[in-house]
């Protein structure tokens, strides 16, 4: 296995964690930072391949999607939608305040 590592500062790791909405503690930031440096070091091998002219493939499928008729259909009932909610109210999903 390739043992290349890339450099990642603690701030960069915290930034990624914030983007991912993961509340990592200091020990996790350190551990994940270390692991990411190894994994990214390996996957970074592809960034040097001279293939800029190759079209990217987002999807293996060769077909274009057919649309269904634009006719309304029943969706979930209120009960169904709230069935697994951690804090349901008659009006919807209750959450803590937005913004601290």
């Amino acid at each position, binding site marked *: 296995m390739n043992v290349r590592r890339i450099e990642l500062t603690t701030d960069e790791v915290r930034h990624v964690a914030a*983007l991912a909405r993961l509340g990592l503690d200091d020990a996790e930031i350190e551990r994940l930072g270390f692991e990411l440096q190894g994994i990214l070091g390996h996957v970074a091998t592809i960034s040097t391949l001279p293939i800029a002219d190759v079209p990217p493939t987002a999807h293996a499928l060769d077909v274009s999607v057919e649309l269904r008729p634009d006719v309304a259909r029943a969706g979930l009932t209120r009960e169904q939608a709230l069935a697994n909610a951690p804090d349901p109210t008659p009006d919807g999903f209750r959450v803590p305040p937005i913004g601290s």
Partner: protein
Amino acid sequence: MLQARDCTAVELASAYLERIELYDGDVHGYLHVDAERTLADAAAQDAAGTTGLSGVPIAYKDLLSTKGVPTTAGSKILEGFMPLEDADVVARGKAAGLVSLGKTNLDEFAMGSSTEHSAYGPTCNPWDLTRVPGGSSGGSAAVVAAGLAPWSLGTDTGGSIRQPAAFCGLVGLMPTYGTVPRFGVVAFACSLEQVGPITLTVRDAALLQQIIAGASERDATCTGPREPIVVPTAGRLDGITFGVPWAELEEGVEPGIRARFDGSLQIARDLGAEIVDVELPYARHGLAAYYVIAPAEASANLSRFDGVRYGLRVEAPDVRSMYEATRDAGFGPEVKRRIMIGTYVLSAGYHDAYYLQAQRVRTLIRRDFDAAFSSVDAILSPTAPTTAFEFGARLDDPLAMYANDIFTLPVNLAGVPALSLPNGLVEGLPSSLQIIGPSHSENLLFRLGAAFEEAHGFDPVPPLLRGGSS
């Protein structure tokens, strides 16, 4: 047995439930079993009169939504979650009269190659209980190998059907992308994954594939197979040309696996096939490309788990803190690793160098396969480079864990199908052969697989279950 009316669906289900009682304490393949419900379903099948495959039991990977039955994706973040609907493949199983025995264990959110990353504890390999069954569909494979289900469904994103099938001495199919609907499958990487069968025989894999494959209104990426699935008979391989990517097999393959692979090649020649060299020069970059693309898609797919509408919620004074605390508590270490990688490679400044570049590699891998298939009917490789390893052996080094899938990953990146079947034992542990075909070549794969299967003569019952020593 059922079709011959040797027994009723209730008797058959009862027999499996008894075995689950006896052995699943050791194997831990199941996360959820509801004997009452299973027997009621079986009784309903008997009452309706069993025909075809109705009344046959099945196990479902706990990544597949089952209405009114807990579906956890192997994660604490979905503990107790009850889907509102069945996944399309489960609904099709029900329509065929299959009786669910329960939900099987998996690496959390299908991320892993050993089932050690399940939040509910690992599953043990029925061939050696100190070893992993593979992953992420380790539970689905273990229950079939241990005789706790006649067959099961797994999912495969980078090898998660084929590699556990290989570790457990079973048949596993990764179908052509877009032939089996993903509606109701908890999403990991949408452009890479398919649901597929894990079975004791190639014939069973074809039978199960007939039930689950087909276009779906609820999955825009699923247009179904191009031709009906045909249940194969074993025969010769005259006129067949196999390609072997020798350059890719030079490193990393355990000698015993290589010896069994050479044995399969000799069988192919004895049955009349020709073996030629093929080059897949970009396949060696498959692991790197996969570990950019799959985590990137996963980071997007798993952003829905935020404690708002379902699943675990950790209370906090504001919504952002709630997201962060919930996700920190609910996700295990492998899932966090992959979300972090995925978020990084998609973030500003890195997107082009990593994600776009990985998609270019994906194009080149696809082209490698297309070029190879212009001169060969199918490509052969070992499924996994090693036999089942011991618990803990790969946990400290994520890259070592990822290396399990070097032969399976390129298949998902290219969207082509592949069949894995056992080809022998290496020091008492199963070894497997992978047959890769062009898109929509499942019938060819089944036919080729049946021919190898008959010639290999592999007995899928582990010695542990025969009362012998391992």
